[in-house]
């Protein structure tokens, strides 16, 4: 065969730098205008920042010592200008496309920086506590979103995270109260998470029920059943059934002594450490192991997996059930992991936020974690701002995390692509 007759692997040549793909251009303008708006708001805030110092707390729980004072307006201005430069550079295509993510991140940091200088001018902003609270809010969201990642990578939509949270929270509380063992509580929560997952798996994989609605129904079911059992049992004998022990924080030597982030990240409960491990493990397993390869294959193209001898349904079952473990543990956070006793519907929609985080994170474990942290950060920020009192009305602050998510999704994340076979049952003749 002569050289000329074989087709090369790639027939496309990269476009010359002078010509921008229309899709890129649209994206650049969309993201760029959003960045510019935020950069200008940042600058404007800087202009209206009071003189005086903005003080930031650097060690969690300590508001007397370890403070960092900065001249509020000057700092805000510098950050504001930096932000405008970053946004400008992006919009004017002054840096290669591949750096645009860094620019957006830089702008984000600048914006939050000038915003905080503005809000904290003349006051003390608990910076370490900001991250501490972010982690508190994000932990169950991360576990829930990871559960979603596992399910959906295998092609099963999981809207039932909220339901899994609820039963996990419920059982953890009951088991901890009755046995006094936190380990038993966590295991029981994981198991009931799996039980919900069994329902999800059987009805979607075997009975081909529409998975979106199935998830919603399971949430209703979980709310109903935990509510009913709460009414009939926990309520009658709260002392015996609903007084769980809350996990205590365990400081990790060395890591816990790292300045600033050490005490925040490494003086936590076992459940939080499990969450870190889960992010790493799910990422590794999904992308580096045989099982992960198969999970992703059945979520993208189940028939192709079938033709190479993979038992599609079995892989899907295993992924959904493992996801149940994670979601159940996420539920345990609400009781034994953090807040103690169970109360009706106490997960208060967090499962749906986890779902949003999973989509926002593009079905990627790390992405989902970042999205969960983003949401946790926003929620914690609004709570802290309500305390230090800013000119922003409290009602608006309450909406802010949700609005911020919409802005982030519409402005930055844009179109996301789910695993191709996500939500589609695999039927063989």
């Amino acid at each position, binding site marked *: *065969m*002569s050289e*000329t*007759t*074989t*087709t*090369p*692997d*790639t*027939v*496309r*040549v*990269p*476009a*010359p730098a002078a*010509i*921008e*793909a*229309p*899709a*890129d251009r649209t994206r650049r303008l969309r993201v760029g205008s959003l960045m510019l708006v935020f950069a200008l708001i940042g600058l404007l805030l800087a202009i209206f920042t009071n003189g005086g110092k903005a003080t930031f707390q650097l060690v969690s729980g300590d508001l007397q010592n370890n403070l960092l004072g900065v001249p509020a307006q000057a700092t805000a201005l510098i950050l504001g200008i930096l932000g405008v430069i970053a946004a400008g550079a992006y919009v004017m295509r002054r840096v290669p*496309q591949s750096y645009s993510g860094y620019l957006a991140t830089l702008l984000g940091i600048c914006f939050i920086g000038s915003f905080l200088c503005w809000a904290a001018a003349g006051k003390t902003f608990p910076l370490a506590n900001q991250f501490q609270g972010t982690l508190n809010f994000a932990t169950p969201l991360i576990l829930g979103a990871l559960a979603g990642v596992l399910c959906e990578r295998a092609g099963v939509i999981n809207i039932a995270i909220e339901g899994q949270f609820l039963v996990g929270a419920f059982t953890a509380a009951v088991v901890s109260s009755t046995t006094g063992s936190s380990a038993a509580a966590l295991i029981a929560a994981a198991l009931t998470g799996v039980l919900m997952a069994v329902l999800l798996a059987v009805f979607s994989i075997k009975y081909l029920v529409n998975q979106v609605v199935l998830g919603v129904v399971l949430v209703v079911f979980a709310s109903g059943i935990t509510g009913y059992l709460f009414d009939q049992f926990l309520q009658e004998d709260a002392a015996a059934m609903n007084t769980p022990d809350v996990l205590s924080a365990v400081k990790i030597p060395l890591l816990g002594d790292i300045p600033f982030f050490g005490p925040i990240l490494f003086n936590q409960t076992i459940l939080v450490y499990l969450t870190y491990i889960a992010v790493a493990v799910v990422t590794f397993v999904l992308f*580096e*192991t*045989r*099982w992960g*390869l*198969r999970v*992703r*294959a059945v979520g*993208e*193209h189940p*028939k*192709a*997996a*079938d*033709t*190479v*001898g*993979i*038992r599609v349904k079995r892989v899907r079952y295993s992924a959904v059930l493992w996801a149940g473990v994670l979601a159940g543990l996420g539920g345990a956070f609400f009781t034994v992991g953090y807040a103690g006793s169970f109360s009706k519907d106490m997960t208060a929609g967090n499962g749906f936020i986890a779902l949003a985080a999973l989509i926002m994170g593009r079905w990627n474990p790390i992405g989902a974690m970042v999205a969960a942290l983003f949401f946790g950060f926003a929620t914690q920020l609004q709570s802290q701002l309500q305390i230090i009192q800013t000119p922003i009305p409290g009602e608006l602050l309450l909406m802010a995390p949700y609005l911020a998510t919409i802005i982030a999704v519409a402005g930055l994340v844009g179109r996301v692509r789910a695993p*191709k076979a996500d939500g589609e049952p695999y039927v*063989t*003749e």
Partner: protein
Amino acid sequence: MHLELSGLTKSFGSLVANDHIDLVIEPGQIHCLLGENGAGKSTLMNMLYGLLQPDSGEIVIDGAKVRISSPSDAIAQGIGMVHQHFMLVPVFTVAENIMLGREYTRAVGVLDRKKADALVTELSERYGFQVDPEALVEDIPVGVQQRVEIIKALANDARVLILDEPTAVLTPAEIDELIAVMRQLKENGTSIVFITHKLKEVKAIADTITVIRRGKVVGSAEPSATEEELAELMVGRAVDLVVDKDPATPGDTVLRVEGLTVIDERGFTAVDGVDLEVRAGEILAVAGVQGNGQTELAEALLGLTPIAAGRISLDGNDLTGRTTRDRLDAGIGYVPEDRAHDGFVGSFTVAENLVLDMVRRAPFGKGLSLRTDEIEKNAQERVEEFDIRTQSTDLAVSSLSGGNQQKVVLARELSRPLKLLVASQPTRGVDVGSIEFLHTRMVKERDNGTAVLIVSTELDEIAALADRVAVMYRGKVVGVVPADTPRDELGLMMAGASKSEAEVVATENPTTLGTI
């Protein structure tokens, strides 16, 4: 391996797709299966591969009766299959796709990617393919994807290899390459079942030919039989393989494309400064290997893909930047390349699909309301006119066979007055009988004075239809040549040679198919 299928039967609902089929595949033989669209070839092979379970009948391998209840059983029996529709995970790399199901792992199930890469490299070298193990499948051209499919089947050391229409997306040169591989395998004792609609290929390689019609074996033929004989056996009537057509009488320029450039989502140049003209009453065929920008060119003409530069005009009216709706209204008809993806809504009925791009205009839409009676009337007329084989116009289009689905799309596009018809791969995977009809219709459209632009990778089709041929390579038009340019020359130009180079090489190096 001696493989015997006896009395295999499979029905889907009331349709008997395979009706007591007997077939013997001898070791080291290339066995061709021929049949119309929907004859039941894939169904038969899917049963052999464990994807479908036969209702009755048995499979005997080397004298022993076996039960193949899943693809893993088939793989264990030494059966490999290249499926008609790619069974590749687009977001995986080539190596990942090849090791899927038989992964190389180190401790605790951790993938050993190096080993998989090495295997891909080794196999590609053994069979003379060029495949990058690290490339994502969705980023490589279909021709290369087809090779990945073949490597995947070979990696299992299959003793029986089923190839279900592997050549539909290959260039003549690539087909030649594949034929060489098949011969090499055959020499090593591998049996091959080969399904194709291209009779030339059958004649070039088959040891045995079995013809299936409507789920039954209707006979066998010798490789020496003529194409006409084979076609007649398949379709059950005489088929005219050459389209009767008068020379074109081109009128004014209808479509004018200037400097058209398309950048795809990944930032690659898909169409690179293309200039084209199509005149009323002529058929311009755009030839090229899949993935060289023809798809994007056609989509850009319809406004389905945004363009980075250039100008498109129809009858002198600038269409650049107009919506797809506007372009359809301006008189462009469009037959997309992937019918199930872009051509019709599978769950909609035949009648609904026949008005898919016309619901808003009279007589089908009146104000906001839909005139269901008119839609039904139209459906009856089109089904009649285009001989669409369906039990009812209320059936979902997805239940029709590929050829009939294609007729639905074509019938719809030709049922309104057109200035320009753009048809991509109008007969891909369609059997000879239907091809004959579809070709005749397109020529008729030309004769009515419509400008026709056909995008095709099939040289047969180009030869049958084109008045002029534009060859595309890497997004550029490498030459516009007369319709009677020899196949081998066209093939070379499709691989990037200029016309003059192609002329020289083609005479020195004739290909198998080019000379038949």
